[in-house]
């Protein structure tokens, strides 16, 4: 086919589509809505899983906490370090200082900046908070008058905010308040000889499971040990539960797509007379399929791109918080998360396949079937 014929077919397809602008716009709008809904749900689940998993993988292999009949309890520092280090396979043990404190707007997580954490903050470009200072996550409410924050714990302290962490670490640090270790111990009621828990490192992932019994037995008090697999399992478990809700919400979207596909199938099948007429003019089956393909793509591609763009913005643009609440059933307003786009390409390809595939089938198959029939049958039958 030469370029003149191609151009003619393109123009013809565009003009033919223009004969039914309302129908084309409505169809495109429905496709865009379905894609938005589908892509937002799948992207949110994928991005949240990927982001959380990468955060967990960056954390310690094992976390050991002391448990008592009344709940968590501080760990005696020296004895706990000695117990953990005595276990074969343990390569490093770091005590961590953290716990919950209250603020005027609700509970916050207080973290004492120990030397390893200090290094991580410096990598991010922040200096560790000095005495009386606080480095806070992007979701922590601070007084706009004097940039201070008051924490209510075992002791009440008012601290000067020295910095606010960026929103791209919000998933990990949204409600965190980093304090000088001394201030943190004061707020949490930990003495200099106590830690909240221990971060334990092992050589490789599989060892984490293997050393758990030995680690458990090494302490003279009951402990709870979690490894990365537990943490990731908790995330996946939450997503399985919340994703169930999202899946239920997807049903109407998929139903709408199915109706759209059925309608397109009927519409194209209903234009058998016109297809027959074009055949009588010498249009080949290929010509008819090309025009139908151009028209189908002209509707579906912009609509799909629009839907994907909206979904992408809703999921990955920091500050948009309601999709998580709506689709995953998060009960509290979620933080303005910055999620990783790793794995998003596969989700986008899946959504495109789920929408464009059936749409093309619904529009092309009836056209091909009609185009293969005798024109006489089509013209007489459609009269």
């Amino acid at each position: 086919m030469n370029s003149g014929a191609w151009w003619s077919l393109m123009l013809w397809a565009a003009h033919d589509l223009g004969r039914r602008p309302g129908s084309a716009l409505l169809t495109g709008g429905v496709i865009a809505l379905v894609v938005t809904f589908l892509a937002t749900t799948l992207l949110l689940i994928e991005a949240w899983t990927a982001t959380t998993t990468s955060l967990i993988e960056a954390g310690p292999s094992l976390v050991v906490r002391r448990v008592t009949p009344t709940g968590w309890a501080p760990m005696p520092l020296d004895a706990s370090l000695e117990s953990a280090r005595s276990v074969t396979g343990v390569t490093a043990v770091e005590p961590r200082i953290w716990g919950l404190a209250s603020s005027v707007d609700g509970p916050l997580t207080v973290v004492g900046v120990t030397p390893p954490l200090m290094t991580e903050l410096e990598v991010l470009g922040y200096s560790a908070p000095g005495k009386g200072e606080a480095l806070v996550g992007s979701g922590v409410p601070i007084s706009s008058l004097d940039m201070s924050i008051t924490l209510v714990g075992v002791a009440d302290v008012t601290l000067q905010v020295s910095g606010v962490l960026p929103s791209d670490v919000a998933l990990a640090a949204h409600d965190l308040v980093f304090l000088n270790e001394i201030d943190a111990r004061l707020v949490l009621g930990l003495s200099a000889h106590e830690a909240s828990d221990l971060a334990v490192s092992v050589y490789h992932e599989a060892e984490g499971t293997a050393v758990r019994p030995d680690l458990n037995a090494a302490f003279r008090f009951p402990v709870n040990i979690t490894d990365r697999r537990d943490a990731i399992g908790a995330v996946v478990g939450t997503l399985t539960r919340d994703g169930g809700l999202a899946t239920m919400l997807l049903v109407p979207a998929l139903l709408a797509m199915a109706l759209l596909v059925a309608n397109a199938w009927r519409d194209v099948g209903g234009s058998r007379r016109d297809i027959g007429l074009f055949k009588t003019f010498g249009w080949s089956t290929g010509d008819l399929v090309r025009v139908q393909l151009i028209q189908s793509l002209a509707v579906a591609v912009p609509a799909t791109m629009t839907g994907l763009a909206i979904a992408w913005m809703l999921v990955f643009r920091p500050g948009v918080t309601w999709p998580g609440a709506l689709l995953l059933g998060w009960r509290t307003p979620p933080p303005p998360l910055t999620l990783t786009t790793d794995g998003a390409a596969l989700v986008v390809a899946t959504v495109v396949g789920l929408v464009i595939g059936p749409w093309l089938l619904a529009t092309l198959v009836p056209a091909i079937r009609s185009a293969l029939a005798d024109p006489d049958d089509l013209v007489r039958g459609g009269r």
Partner: protein
Amino acid sequence: MAFARIELKNIRHTWRDGSGESGLSVPAMAFESGRHVLLTGPTGSGKTTLLHLLGGLVRPQSGEILADGVAVSRWTAAHRDRWRQRVGILFQHMELIDGLNADQNVMAPLVPRPGSVRDKIVAVAEALAKVGAETLAHRQVRALSGGERQLVALARAIVGHPDLLLLDEPTSHQDDDHVRLILDRVNEANDRGAIVITASHDPRLTGAVGIDATHVLGGGRVGEP
């Protein structure tokens, strides 16, 4: 290049219509280049079916249609698509595409053919002018009278300069002036070497200038009068 000769051999074809099953039997018939043949006969005698067989719109149930000795009726679907590009057809019921303007209807046969869009637009304007329908170019066909629709359908049939022009009741909605105009256009096609076959009840065409032969269909068979 125009066809030198199109032949029908032992064509038998039956179809169902409102009055039951009808049939067409053509033992032998030939159409020569540059000739205008008139098919007449009562309603249901198979005139339209014969045109549709020649136009490649339907395959004969038995027998052969030969173009310059090649059995085109046995061709595959893709070859028959190409055959129809050499055929111009004016349907008895016009079969215009509602929702399109007259010029867009005339453009339809040219769309997948080689050539620039500009050349095709010129060809459409010329075809409409030839049948005296240039003023109808931008009007919706559903708003046209029967006679106007027939002129647009004729323009659509001749726009691609077909080698085989098939006209089914082309004058049924026309006054005498337009009948002469239509015959003039047919004669022009003949002059190019095209074969023109007209199926008609219209007595004004019997013996008209330019008609080279008349075949009378009836009783399910066709032959020279």
